[in-house]
């Protein structure tokens, strides 16, 4: 192989890996969305805004207290679980019972508006980023240069996926979440309380948004209006992965990351559009998976 070939390979490899690393964050957001959609049928368009909020938490913790964002992440967990539970009780509990698409969609959108505007008022629309001692450092693997923060973000995503999978498979509440996602009526007949399960699912979804937010703040820049775009990306990740499970959502996110990474290199500026195009193609030709709720048995 000539030096040229290995260099191109290196570039491509780097693109791929970067895509994977960044996409894993979309994946985490998508897992949250899938939990919320699976149990309650709510397309939670405010997920992006919650992610940005989490990012701001990491930012301010860093600015004011010098806390490393990954440390903030750990501290944020219980807080976001509570916030998620509270949001569910206040906003979605009644609507989830009625399972009316308009209502839940609009509530999520209303929440998104309020959050974005509130964040903009409180903290100005200026973009923020966190610069720690290791933010610009990287390391080399197989001729590719990888950033520490992105790799850390990826590892966090893997851990988060693992934890959520354990939760769903090994705990009773987790199994109840899966049961309600498949068939709410049958779940009540075995004694599961759907509202309680919904609340748990929602709380975990918001906690995942917090995780994604912290890694985002460490890796990238955030501003109050980034949320909506993030929500869309998470939705696309969900649709792409669509494999009906947590790993699928992560995979979808990674795939989106790769698509975007590739397109921004070969067709600069069209990254987003490629993502939407992929989204539409999947919706039109392979929409199964997470979006298919319980197949009713005869």
């Amino acid at each position, binding site marked *: 192989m000539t030096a040229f070939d290995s260099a191109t390979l290196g570039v491509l490899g780097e693109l791929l890996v970067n895509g994977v690393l960044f996409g894993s964050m979309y994946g985490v957001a998508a897992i949250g969305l899938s939990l919320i959609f699976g149990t309650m049928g709510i397309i939670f368009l405010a997920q992006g805004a919650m992610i940005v909020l989490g990012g701001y938490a990491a930012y301010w913790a860093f600015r004011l207290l010098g806390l490393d964002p990954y440390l903030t992440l750990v501290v944020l967990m219980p807080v976001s679980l509570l916030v998620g539970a509270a949001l569910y009780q206040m906003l979605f509990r009644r609507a989830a019972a009625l399972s009316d698409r308009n209502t839940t969609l609009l509530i999520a959108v209303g929440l998104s508006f309020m959050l974005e505007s509130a964040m903009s008022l409180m903290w100005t629309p200026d973009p923020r980023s966190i610069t720690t001692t290791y933010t610009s450092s990287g390391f080399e693997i197989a001729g590719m240069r990888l950033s520490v923060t992105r790799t850390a973000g990826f590892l966090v995503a893997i851990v988060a996926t693992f934890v959520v999978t354990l939760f769903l498979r090994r705990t009773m509440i987790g*199994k109840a979440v899966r049961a309600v996602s498949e*068939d709410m*009526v049958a779940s*009540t*007949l*075995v*004694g*599961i309380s759907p509202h309680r399960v919904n609340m748990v699912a929602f709380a975990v979804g918001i906690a995942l948004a917090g995780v994604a937010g912290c890694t985002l703040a460490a890796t990238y820049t955030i501003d109050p209006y980034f949320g909506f775009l993030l929500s869309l990306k998470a939705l696309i990740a969900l649709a792409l992965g669509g494999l009906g499970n947590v790993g699928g959502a992560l995979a979808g996110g990674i795939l989106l990351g790769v698509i975007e990474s590739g397109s921004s290199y070969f067709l600069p500026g069209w990254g987003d559009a490629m993502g939407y195009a992929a989204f539409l193609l999947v919706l039109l030709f392979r929409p199964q998976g997470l979006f298919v709720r*319980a197949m009713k048995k*005869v």
Partner: protein
Amino acid sequence: MKPPLLEVRGLDAGYGDTQALWDVSVAVAEGSVVSLVGANGAGKSTLLKTVSGLLKPQRGQVWFRGRSIAGMAPQAIVATGLSHVPEGRGLFTRMTVLENLQLGAYPGQVRGRTEESLARVFELFPRLRERTRQQAGLMSGGEQQMLAIGRAVMACPSLLILDEPSMGLGPLVVEEVFGLIRRLNDSGVTILLVEQNIQRALQIADRAFVLQTGRVVMQGTGRELLADPDIRKAYIGSLG
């Protein structure tokens, strides 16, 4: 005489503005098998759903073990010892046999006894023991029915409600299922049964109620009704 385990009095129920049951009264004695029979659309499933809490009654009372359960949420009713196996079985097809059974013991009161209940269920349904890791959706109809009943039994119910247990099953399997119902009853579980297969339903019943367009039109012991000429003509279609 002991009060009935389950008693329904003067029940009106339906879906939204459509009424399906008028002034229905039914009693289920403890330890017995009670069958509900009637044509399609007569309201049998509606009655079961109202008892188990899936539907709210419009009027009337439902008493279980001396407590009024009318209007309670299904998950609360399960905790009182009443389990409902719905039409279509309501299995979690994407989960394994074991997971389905474990979820059967979800209510707090019975969760501590999960291992015990599992042992009991495997004793009653040996075939399930071999298939604990199999995905519920991939099993045969008969096995699914067993699993559905097994899951309901995991909650240690005093009253087991079965909606069309023989639906979609071949005659040999139906035989098995009814044998199972008999065994469950012998072990002390009271059974309330809705069944299209009138012959079987009446054969196994200690007491039976006939529903027609939402009303109870006849009741008696299983044997009495089996012998009744009107019933035979209308539902069984055999002569004499």
